[in-house]
């Protein structure tokens, strides 16, 4: 496999803004996307993901670094000279043109003749299931149809790299799920390389072959979704992709046993190979790997736990359609989530896990993931606040 897209050492500052929006470290940001891959840039607002996409598309010139596509340096090229096409946030369809003319616009700019254009527009509309809608105006499309039209318009020129800027952000949940599936299908049929920007970790993990998790202008980790969950590199990644409860604290190691002791609880596990004991560390407890059992009386386990288990009481029960989430507040004040599979749980059925009941949460040492603590990911609420501020 060869890299279709190769970005090296990208850095960017914006006038009037302190610091680097992208690439605060001197070596800058480098990413590679393989041919035919769906590569997601995932991170909160202001992490540099959109800047990266816009540098690739040619809308923003990087202060440093190069962009290579198909082995050719395109850094100095304007958007209309690059072999990339973009699905814009909010689609940016031309409201004064029909869908046909929107989709055919790129070919017209390239001087493709009328009859050839007509054929290719029809094919592109068919590809996204809009055969019947060519004559319509943009205003007459639903959100999902507009999304498809934008896709057809961007794909008709068969770009080497298709850039998608939060393309599903404006759709409701159900439609978003459906469009995620269609995107994957489209990518497989066309063999085009997709670079997809999103702040939605579920979306990134659902459709991407690989995900680059970004924070504060840096790429923190690039991996497949499975690998991200199995082995997040840092506390930030674990928290952002929602891999489990993150316990921060000081670490210590004795032989094979590694321990993170936070203010509220201790977690013991198998010593990881990647982390040396001296740095700030965190333990990640995945909800699928935790067990919960009723305890005879409150405080049966030590307050902060003994490293393999912790005492607390059930805070609330949430049924999310595929699992029961048991939210436990430990005596030390940590919120832990335990996922129980459907059916066959006696404790759940006989009412020992109702809110307020004392419970013990336990785990196997080998299931604990230890990560470097590199800062806190914003919560959904903070994220929303940032977006509101930026919109103003």
């Amino acid at each position: 496999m060869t890299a279709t897209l190769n970005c090296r050492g990208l850095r960017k500052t914006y006038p009037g803004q302190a610091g680097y929006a992208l690439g605060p470290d001197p070596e800058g940001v480098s990413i590679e996307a393989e041919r035919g891959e769906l590569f997601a840039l995932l991170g909160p607002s202001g992490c540099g993901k959109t800047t990266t996409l816009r540098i690739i598309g040619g809308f923003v010139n990087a202060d440093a670094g190069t962009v290579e596509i198909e082995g050719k340096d395109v850094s100095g090229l304007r958007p209309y000279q690059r072999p990339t096409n973009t699905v814009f946030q909010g689609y940016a369809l031309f409201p004064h043109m029909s869908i046909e003319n929107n989709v055919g616009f790129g070919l017209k700019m390239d001087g493709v003749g009328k009859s050839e254009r007509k054929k290719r527009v029809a094919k592109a509309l068919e590809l996204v299931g809009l055969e019947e809608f060519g004559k319509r105006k943009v205003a007459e499309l639903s959100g999902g149809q507009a999304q498809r039209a934008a896709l057809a318009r961007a794909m008709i020129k068969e770009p080497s790299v298709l850039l998608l800027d939060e393309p599903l952000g404006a759709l409701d949940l159900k439609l978003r799920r459906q469009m995620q599936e269609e995107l994957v299908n489209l990518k497989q049929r066309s063999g085009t390389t997709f670079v997809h920007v999103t702040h939605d970790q579920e979306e990134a993990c659902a459709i991407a072959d690989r995900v680059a998790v970004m924070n504060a202008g840096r790429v923190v980790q690039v991996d497949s979704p499975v690998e991200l969950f199995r082995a997040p590199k840092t506390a930030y990644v674990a928290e952002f992709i929602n891999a489990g409860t993150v316990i921060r604290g000081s670490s210590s190691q004795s032989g094979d046993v590694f321990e993170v002791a936070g203010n509220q609880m201790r977690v013991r596990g198998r010593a990881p190979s990647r982390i040396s004991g001296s740095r700030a560390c965190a333990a990640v407890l995945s909800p699928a790997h935790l067990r919960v059992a009723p305890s005879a009386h409150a405080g049966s386990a030590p307050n902060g736990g003994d490293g393999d288990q912790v005492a607390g009481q059930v805070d609330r029960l949430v049924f999310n359609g595929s699992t029961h989430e048991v939210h436990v507040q430990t005596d030390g004040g940590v919120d832990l989530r335990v996922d129980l599979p459907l059916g066959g749980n006696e404790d759940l059925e006989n009412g020992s896990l109702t809110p307020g009941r004392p419970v013990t949460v336990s785990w196997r040492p080998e299931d604990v993931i230890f990560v470097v603590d590199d800062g806190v990911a914003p919560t959904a609420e903070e994220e929303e606040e940032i977006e509101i501020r930026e919109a103003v």
Partner: protein
Amino acid sequence: MDTVERSPETVSPVPDKGRRFGGGGNVERDPLASKLLSLPALLLVVIGFLLPLLVLVVYSFWPTVNGQILHEWTFDNYSKIFESGGTYLPTLLDTFKFVGLSALATVVLTFPLAYFVAVKVRPSRRIFWLVAAVVPFWTSYLIRVFAWKNMFGDTGVINTAITKLGLSSTPLEFFGFSRPAILITFVYLLFPLAFLTSYISLERLDIRLLEAASDLGAKPWRRLTSIIVPFAKSGLIAGFIVCFITMVGDYVTPSMIGGTEGIFFSNLVVNQFGGSLQWGFGAALGLILLISILLLLVALRATAGAVASAGEYTRVYVKERSPFLVAYSILYMVFLYTPIALLILFALNDSQVVGFPIKGFTLEWFQAVFDDPSLIDALYTSLQVAAITVLISVVLGTLAAVQLARAKGRIRNLSLLTISAPMLLPPVVLGIGIIIGLNAVGAERGLWSIIMAHVILTLPVATLLVMVRLEGFDRSQEQAAMDLGAKPVMAFLRITLPQALPGIVAAAMISFALSMDEFIMTFLVTGSDVTLPLYIFGSIRFEISPALMALAALIIIVSFLLIVIGAFVAFGRSKALRTDGGSK
């Protein structure tokens, strides 16, 4: 895939830092953000507006002796204004008081109608009210003054009716040529502007705010004072300012309607440039007027405070009926259209005398209009002036708007302020500025000085109209076009311009209408050329003939048709655009 081969000659190494930050936007190297685009418009305003104002300042310190300007520095002109017992300062105060009252009356009397249309009328029907309310504005200013001149006076329609009906044995002074008559005429003249500014600010009023206020126990009166008026405050103040500036610079209406009570400050200013040729003194008077207005603007700005949030445009309206508002609105329409209807009626009356009784139907007076060669000449001159004015204003205004809509920061704000500055001054000051400027460089007046004046007047309007349209435009559409292979200029021509077209068309229409109707400046800056408003003024000043009624009726009918057609064409478009916005 060989698409990478496109335009290899522009491949450059890693861009050097800083070079591409021009324009401040994210898309760098945008040729349409070049400041050169605003330059022609700016130059025009500087030459046609700022320089003449400077000359005005200089002239105000020079004395006039025997009709000749002497180049000696002196404060004589000012000390003459400020000397005790003089008539100038009292007249200024009197003018400001009366005009302030008139502007206030216009805004207050118009507010219920604006509220009714913006909040109580179903959105699909609003267009009828809007057109009905605004159409009179686009019929000639002078004709509208004339329509009221016809109503007032001892032998005017109103007093004739009163005496004939036996309500009073003698004509009532209130309906003579006096201050109340001027006030009524001013309200009538400026009503559409006050209506539009109030309407625009009220249109976005979220009626749920009113429901919330009621829910929290606010009585109707409290709703008005604590929700509606504060929400519309900026619109009300804007309306007051527009009315005030127009009224204070109007030297025609007072002298035509006010009789002996119709001498206002602007009349004093203009008189200095007529027979008495006191140019230096006139310049000083003009400057005093200008400074007084600026002080008033600053004071109003301070009281206006922060502008309330605009709110969202909604299609929601209050369905609850309000007989008072309906009756008020209908009466207002009667007030608007009665003088116009009477003009048309008298134009068709087979009688040498203008007024009642109606003796029969004739088209003779219309025939007389077309038989008058000097009228045809005036019309031709006006069309010529208007066409050239529209061309210059719209082209220069659009170029400037394209750049200003893309720019940010200080230079942009300064450019915008410069271009729109002529709108903040009454045309009478602009007019004397231009003739003094021409006098200073020793240039002859002619058709071109009229065009110059009209361009100064219409350029700000054209620029702002196009800019508003371009600013609401989603720039990512241009980026999408470039992403699909369009060069920046092509992206602008194919994507931006077509969508800005309604703004450009509106700018052209409004500039045309303003130019065709302009009297205040034209009267001052013309040489020997006679435009249509000048011709009309010359005719209506002394005698009211049935032929004049026919001319007025013709102008009203033609502008009415043009506006109605234009409004419905534009409304069809904006309806389509609104649904675009709604889908986002």
